[in-house]
């Protein structure tokens, strides 16, 4: 699946997007954040406080308990500040 990062999440991880193959058992958005956190210091720093990170599955807002199977694109970003 494709992962996209925005704003300071993108800056901390150091790239705007990447393709990943999470192992079986990574079932939800929260699982995916925990798995990503273990991939290196830059990820650990980005997901340091998972409560503030927002996510989207296939371009629609998704809660931490949302199931990720079948998702093509998952995005992580800070709370939005548009308008």
């Amino acid at each position, binding site marked *: 699946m494709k992962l996209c990062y925005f704003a300071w999440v993108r800056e901390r991880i150091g790239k705007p997007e990447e393709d990943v193959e999470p192992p079986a058992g990574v079932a939800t958005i929260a699982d995916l954040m925990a798995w990503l956190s273990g991939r290196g210091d830059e990820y650990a720093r980005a997901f340091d406080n998972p409560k503030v990170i927002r996510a989207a599955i296939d371009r629609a807002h998704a809660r931490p308990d949302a199931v990720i199977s079948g998702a093509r694109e998952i995005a992580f970003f800070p709370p939005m500040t548009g*308008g």
Partner: protein
Amino acid sequence: MAAMVRLQREPFDAGSEMALLKRGRGDIGAVVTFTGVCRADEAGAPLVAMTLEHYPGMAEAEIGRHVDDAERRWPLFGVTVIHRYGRLEPGEDIVLVVTAAAHRQDAFAAAEFLMDYLKTCAPFWKQVEYAGGKTWVDAKLSDDALADRWTGPGGRREAAE
């Protein structure tokens, strides 16, 4: 209903967008236009510029969902939403919401509803540039509260009134 959602780097002209929405219609009795403008300071510190990052694809979809929601809540004849991205300097326009209806109450309410949701749900992030460096703007809890007031019983604005 005529609905248009547009994301662009370029400036927009509120007057011509309003004229476009009204053109050839005799049923519109009220048009509300809201323009959000880049201030010259953020939290008291003078601002050099602001850069808006967005999530292409999702931003249009998310704004479109809220335009549909507004249409279900109020009898609207037209909605235009334009949100800019990229680097903006103080005084430049950021966002435009235009709502048209037969009567002003519906046009005002729909414009306010759309702005409250744009602030908290549309995937845009502001980074402000000071003389000494750059920083991402923190989301405001007060903006969440303003968006939440539309989700009260009946889906109207009871919570705020």
